[in-house]
């Protein structure tokens, strides 16, 4: 009897049309909010990471100019840590025990270091390699005291080239990164367990020798890129998913 009474009470509450309608409105709100939130969150996470790395590169350059000293910004691909420091003479581009950190940034777990078509944490994910003919000096950006870039010597760290044409999607500030690679710190998002196709590139001196820092996003195939090119473009960016 009590079970029947409880069921009646339960039914009275949950079969009430008012509850059903309220639930339907709540469910639709949650569904739409969730879908929009997921998209915004995913995009903002990788954008924030790319902005974080870019800000540290800009700060490193500014410190180099302010102090008129060499400043090195190194990316540890394994620990995902980006650290900058003033390189005391003799400049060896390595962090000696006496050299204190100027700034650091940890790349979040939701973002991977990966170049277009490359492996996660692969050699091209941070393409600022080989200085002073030393193959072991990799994954670091070095600024001189005048703010200019010490040019990395590895093949994968060459500057990009201009795209063959300027289109609505590939604007004048875009670059084409040849298959051998081009210099940059490449950050890719993650879509569930697999790596996403949204790749950002933070780099210095795309065109010219002024030490200008750039933040560009890869234009995936089918989004208006030039055939046969790996184009990276400034905003407004095209997103995959």
């Amino acid at each position, binding site marked *: 009897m009590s079970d029947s009474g409880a069921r009646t009470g339960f039914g009275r509450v949950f079969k009430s*049309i*008012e509850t*059903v*309608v*309220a639930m*339907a*409105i*709540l469910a*639709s*709100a949650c*569904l*739409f*909010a969730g879908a*929009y939130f997921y*998209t*915004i969150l995913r*995009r*903002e996470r990788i*954008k*924030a990471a790319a*902005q974080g790395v870019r800000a540290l590169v800009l700060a490193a350059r500014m410190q180099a100019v302010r102090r008129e000293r060499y400043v090195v910004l190194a990316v540890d691909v394994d620990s995902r840590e980006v650290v900058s420091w003033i390189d005391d003479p003799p400049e060896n581009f390595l962090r000696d025990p006496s050299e204190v950190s100027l700034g650091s940034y940890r790349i979040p777990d939701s973002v991977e270091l990966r170049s277009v078509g490359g492996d996660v944490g692969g050699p091209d994910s941070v393409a600022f390699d080989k200085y002073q003919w030393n193959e072991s000096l990799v994954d670091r950006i070095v600024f001189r005291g005048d703010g200019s870039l010490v040019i990395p010597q590895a093949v994968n760290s060459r500057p990009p080239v201009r795209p063959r044409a300027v289109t609505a999607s590939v604007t004048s500030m875009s670059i084409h990164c040849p298959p051998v690679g081009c210099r940059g710190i490449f950050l890719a998002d993650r879509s569930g367990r697999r790596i996403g196709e949204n790749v950002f590139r933070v780099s210095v001196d795309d065109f010219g020798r002024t030490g200008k820092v750039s*933040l560009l996003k890869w234009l995936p195939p089918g989004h208006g890129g030039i055939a046969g090119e790996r184009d990276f473009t*400034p*905003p*407004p*960016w*095209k*997103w995959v998913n």
Partner: protein
Amino acid sequence: MDANTKQPRRTGWVILVLMAATNFLPWMEPLIRETLSAELVGAPRLRLSMGACLLGGALVAMCWLAGRHSSSPLPRALSRPRLIGFRIALGCAAMNIFCGAIVARYAASMPPGRWSLDVIIAVVWFVAVLPGEVLSSYLTGRGTVRRPAPEPALPAETATREMPIEA
């Protein structure tokens, strides 16, 4: 006879859900548009958009409930509350979709400023769409309750008794 008379009445919740769901278009499309730029979406902006959507949904639900439980007489112009509510709801949903499409299409090319496209659409939403949704859900709620006309021979309390039917 039952099937024919009850079928259209079960669309009430669809009307409410339609309004609550389309509210996200004019409020969330500007944020999606902002992800295309280098700047990050600000937390106040996100709170405002989400708050407006939740406010819209809550008001729709509350006004529908208020309409169901209300016993005050409706003006003659609103003698068919359910139909009028349905029409207003369709208008509000169409307005939401239109605003969302306009933002998605043109917001990036508009210069930022005090009266940017996002601000204009937010004002339009608060001034026109939200009151429309409130009215529509109230009328839809009123339309879900059948009130028999009072018979002179019956006592007053029997005459005003409400007979709830399906939404």
